[in-house]
């Protein structure tokens, strides 16, 4: 009984210590981001890898999400003879919720996993040790630029997801289901306020931080072997998904 309780205690201490290490990793990456010299070239490079390289998958998923919302929204609203509110329903759903969350999922799958695998491979092949041995702080060189890039690229991707999603809904609603184009846009214009856009963008900034933080941490601390890299990649994706949904709940409840 005592040993069982001891194991539970040890597990709890390990988990809390692990969370503490993750938090300190984030704090040190943020503090180092403000230390000179600024890594502008690396930040721009990672904005490209997180943003530009994820653009096609985000645009595609945004378009199909919007089209599905067009069909589902039309089906639901027709029951109340409110088909003209399709544009409004789609825009609010995308701007406040689906845009930030789904684009964050896409970026996690597309770029976050690659980030964890890349840093994990760098750990396994002693490239991170090589940076330490050259007196270069690997957190400043590898992690801080990725986090800044995530904070910049994620809201931009979300905005693109939202615009393309609304277009997808328009194609289905107006083009296929004969909703009036005027009512589609006027409903949207009447119901969407700045706070809706602001809350979605705030969420996407938080998700950008979560994805880059978790994926960099897991990759950076991967076991130096092939299974270690694959495990770090899997854990980074799963943990990012979970944290995105948990934070989405809290942010929604705060900003409703």
């Amino acid at each position, binding site marked *: 009984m005592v040993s069982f309780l001891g194991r539970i205690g040890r597990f709890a201490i390990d988990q809390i210590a692990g969370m503490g290490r993750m938090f300190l990793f984030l704090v040190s990456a943020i503090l180092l981001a403000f230390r000179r010299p600024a890594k502008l070239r690396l930040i721009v490079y990672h904005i490209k890898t997180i943003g530009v390289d994820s653009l096609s998958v985000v645009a595609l998923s945004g378009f199909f999400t919007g089209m599905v919302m067009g069909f589902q929204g039309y089906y639901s609203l027709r029951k109340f003879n409110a088909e003209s509110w399709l544009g409004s329903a789609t825009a609010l759903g995308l701007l406040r919720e689906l845009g930030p969350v789904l684009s964050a999922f896409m970026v996690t799958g597309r770029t976050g996993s690659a980030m964890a695998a890349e840093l994990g491979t*760098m750990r396994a*092949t*002693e*490239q991170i*040790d*090589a940076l*330490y*041995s*050259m*007196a*270069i*702080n690997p957190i400043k*060189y590898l992690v801080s630029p990725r986090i800044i890039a995530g904070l910049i690229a994620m809201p931009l991707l979300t905005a693109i997801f939202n615009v393309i999603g609304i277009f997808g809904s328009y194609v289905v609603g107006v083009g296929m289901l004969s909703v009036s184009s005027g009512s589609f846009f006027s409903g949207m214009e009447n119901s969407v306020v700045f706070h809706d856009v602001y809350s979605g963008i705030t969420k996407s900034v938080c998700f950008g931080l979560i994805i880059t933080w978790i994926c960099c941490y897991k990759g950076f601390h991967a076991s130096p072997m092939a299974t270690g890299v694959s495990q770090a990649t899997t854990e980074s994706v799963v943990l990012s998904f979970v944290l995105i949904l948990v934070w989405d709940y809290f942010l929604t409840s705060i900003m409703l």
Partner: protein
Amino acid sequence: MIRVANLHKSFRGQKVLKGVNIEFARGKITTIVGTSGCGKTVLLKHLNALLLPDKGEIFIDSVDISKLRQKELYQIRAKFGVLFQGAALLDSMSVFENVGFPLREKTKMKESNIKKKVADRLEQVGLGEMGHKLPAELSGGMRKRAGLARALIMDPEIVLFDEPTTGLDPVLATSIHQLIARTQEAFGFTGIIVSHTIPQVFEISDYVAMLANGVVEELTPPEVFCSSQNPIVQQFIHGKTEGPIQVL
């Protein structure tokens, strides 16, 4: 110059180093030998504080680095060049960028001077024409040579070599050894080599240290080492399975 005193290190309860005492002579090459998994690389990684000891001291120029703060450790690491086992070149950069990387990051040297210095170092290691290639496009021997060029680019006082010839054929291994000897003669650094390539590595070594059972069993010039009466040394040199070194 470098003194290790009573160094202990464990990983998940397994004791790897159990009180290592050793002094590395300034401006000389010392080779550390020992069976696989005996802790040679662990010892090497303590010297530039990539690992920190559980117990014991490591003195670099009379400074105990095991008690330094992170910022001070970075200053100590600047004295070192390291050639890693797999060269550890950054895969996203060309060979030229890899070799020039420490200069760009740690100095305010002009770009034209960086290019000249990198070209010189690459020429010295026989990679003058390979600067534009990515590490993945190089053979194992070329990668080691590029790693050596990077290790030497900051004119370090101490260079650590972690198994520089592992996985190379005997001809290439000899050429890497000759390259290490030649560059040591040219730059006068203190070289510490972890190697399994015996007896070839003895030709370029001033001292040989035998690590076994978590301690340094022998530290002598190579000619004395080979004729040592220490049964551990004899078993290791002759590759016998029976003796004081336990083979799993």
